[in-house]
């Protein structure tokens, strides 16, 4: 019994199942596959780069899900070049 409880706390396959479900459902609900998100990321990088220098390798786009609200979160680091005031 105690061994069961410890094992459950450490996390059996149910924990993995829950994580996988959370991940796949975020994509399912938005109708966005990981490949589509990648394509969108490329478009975003191109669009934003026309206005400002960005660190395109570190751009991250993710879908998040807090219960019923789906959110697309983009983290777009600017290229680190400090503008010198003239």
């Amino acid at each position, binding site marked *: 019994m*105690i061994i069961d409880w410890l094992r*459950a706390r450490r996390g*059996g*396959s*149910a924990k993995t*199942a*829950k994580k*996988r*479900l959370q991940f796949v*459902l975020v994509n399912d609900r938005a109708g966005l596959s990981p490949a589509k998100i990648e394509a969108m990321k490329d478009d975003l990088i191109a669009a934003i780069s026309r206005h400002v220098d960005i660190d395109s390798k570190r751009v991250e786009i993710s879908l998040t899900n807090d219960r019923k609200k789906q959110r697309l979160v983009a983290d777009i680091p600017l290229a680190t070049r400090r503008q010198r005031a003239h």
Partner: protein
Amino acid sequence: MSATVVTVTSGKGGVGKTTATANLGTALAEIGQRVVCIDADIGLRNLDVVMGLENRIVYDLVDVIEGRCKLRQAMIKDKRLSDLYMIPAAQTRDKTAVSPEDMVRIADDLRPKHDWVLIDSPAGIERGFRNALAPADIVLIVTNPEVSAVRDADRIIGMTEAEEKDEPKLILNRVKPEMVRRGEMLRAEDVLDILAIELIGVVPEDESVLKASNQGVPVALNGRSKAGRAYRAIALRLMGDELPIEELEAEGGLFNRLTRMVKAGGQAA
């Protein structure tokens, strides 16, 4: 009085929709409700065998829709309970023989003289599912604590929302408490976290379900069966009874788990 139409659906096949429909119908009829169960799985008739009524079929749902018989003639009276009826699916036709409007009309014809109309939906998200969903006042989603079944349930929830139905309620079927305890099976709380809908019942995996379907006697009639008890509890919740849901109570919180461990230890000593 007008009947409440309940559609039992799931997305994924084989999770226990037909068993749930037969048992909820039986449990409701047993407490004096007037019930009609409709098998909406055209081409894959099954509710009749689970209820043990397969030898009495003369007319089916498509016969009613196409005017070959009166609705009353396709309603098969249960062997044991006086106010329980079943309308079988056609076996030789497919889903296109029925439209959502047909289902709404049949449900409306049944409403005045019954308390509950239960519709056993086919698996999938196509026409058959849409037919079953059309007349629903309440949607019950059956799922198993398994990745593929929960994923499909999520799709179905999205589709019922798109049809502007009230938020569906969840039946978590085939739970093995022992696996849950070892952390090898999703617990009800996990599934609810993911699906974010209200739970109406947890049904444990139970050999007596298979034995009952072998015999064509719904397990809800078996007083000693855990699954039967779970279905009777769901029937009461449909009636508005606020019975606590066992699995959540038993598995909730460290304190409960510890007290159960102490109790189990005490019994063993």
